[in-house]
């Protein structure tokens, strides 16, 4: 199972790298989103995939899952959600102002 997860992470990272290197604003944003997914999935996998009951009161099980990575990932997801929303609005505004979504044209010169 770990192998499968790691492979998924690898695919996500490579896709996001491809997207980050493209010239369209929206694709770059999508690349960031996919990269964040890859990071979260990696976190889940690295902490160890275990079988066990959720660590809640009243569950009487032999083993419990580690709640810490899940809590951390949830936090990271929420942060990623906020940043993604901001990025989307920012890229939309950039597109509106500059009338282009091509990063090549958004380079700007060194002195202006």
């Amino acid at each position, binding site marked *: 199972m770990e192998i499968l997860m790691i492979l998924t992470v690898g695919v996500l990272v490579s896709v996001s790298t491809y997207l980050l290197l493209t010239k369209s604003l929206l694709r770059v944003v999508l690349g960031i989103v996919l990269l964040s997914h890859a990071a979260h999935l990696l976190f889940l996998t690295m902490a160890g995939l275990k079988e066990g009951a959720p660590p809640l009161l009243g569950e009487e099980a032999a083993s419990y899952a580690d709640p810490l990575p899940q809590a951390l990932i949830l936090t990271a997801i929420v942060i990623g959600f906020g940043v993604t929303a901001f990025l989307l609005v920012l890229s939309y505004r*950039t597109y509106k102002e500059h009338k282009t979504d091509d990063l090549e044209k958004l380079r700007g010169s060194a002195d202006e």
Partner: protein
Amino acid sequence: MNNIVLLPVLIPFLVGVILILFRNQLPIQRFVSGVTTLGLVGISAYITYLIYQDGIITLELGNWPAPFGIVLVGDLFASIMVVFASIVAAACLFFAFQTLHPDREKYYFYPFFFFLLTGVNGSFLTGDIFNLFVFFEVMLISSFVLIVMGGTKYQLRESFKYVVISTFGSMFFVIAVALLYSVTGTLNYAHLAERVAEAAQQGQSGILTVIAILFLIVFGLKGALVPLHFWLPNAYFGPPTAIAALLGGLLTKVGVYSIMRTHTLIFTHNQDFTLTIILILAGLTMFFGVIGAVSKFDFKRILAIHIVSQVGYMIMGLGIGTTMAIAGSIYIITHNMIVKTALFLFCGATEKVTGTTNLKKMSGLLKTHPYLGWLFFVAAISLAGIPPLSGFFSKFALVLGGLEAERYFIVFVSLVVGLLTLFSMVKIFMYVFWGSPSLSPEEVKKTKVGKLLIPGIPLVIISILMGILAEPVYLLFEAAANQMLDPSIYINSVIKE
């Protein structure tokens, strides 16, 4: 257990939230935020005094004991950083009162200003590496909003790049934390320090070094180390000067602080390798930062690129790794926060006078605005490291530490860079303040800058005081460095057994 260490994090957050409710009442916003920042300076100074007297203060949030719950830890280094961050924030705030356009102020400038401060102070005081990530994000998201505030074409374009790069760095942060957690099974600084030492002895030194370098990349991206600095000059050029000064004074220092914290406390298992890498990066950062500045002819841009070069000095002390060098590092971080902010504020005042930041379009301001000219001069030579100002003594400690540790090459680089810094500061001074006045007498009357200089004056005075009172100031920083170099003090005050 002492709740006082929470206040530098909680007060800005609370005030920021309350100010959302007063969006359209600018006088209330200004009054409340002014009082708060001044209060923060006082509170953080008091906390530093307490820590200096009684040792490290820890706070276990929610009453959960240390390795399991979240802790805030105030040691001397962290609290010194909080004091200087508060001073910088206060100066920028009072400058913003006078220069920011009311439209920008109404777009939640003050709430985000305080959220930024929450993130910065939280990053300094947290005792937990995941919380460092969270506070980093609080700080970064606020900085995104501040940097794009106003939404000019240039700002939008450069902010997009800044946001993408920062977010990219944050994702690496998550990955690095994940790897660290899988090796050690904990995220608390003090607990990590113990576990990393154990794991390194059990033959996991290699992967821990990889993780250490991964963290170095993450923090280096935030702290603008060469070759990860490329986003900084353009991003800081766009926003109004008050905001650029705030970000330039605070953000990179948080990255530097995190590097120093992790590499003195946690990743101490393979210092021969990691510290050498840091030293190399320090040399590159200093040199290329200052070379970039030498070639530019724009006031604000030169200052922005100088941030990069100064970051090199801060890291250099860590790379040398002796008490004196680290004390020098702390000295130069604090000195730089003060002086760099002052320079940015004077740059803002100059921009207000001449309407441009292009050096070639202005001249002769020394005749028409002598106070501005001389204040800038003092701050500039302090940055370059002329005695008896703070810049000299901070570099002196650093260089002496380097010589004692027999790191001659990096010392040589730092001295050359100091010379080039002086050169680019003198260049600004010559272009802006010498020559025949470019403004007519009527224009001079319209552009009184007296009030604009008020936030900068205390900063210059602090810089002079940090030079004249170098002895006690250095002793304080040396105490902080001693605390950092002996991780057991930190560990024992967090994990009580």
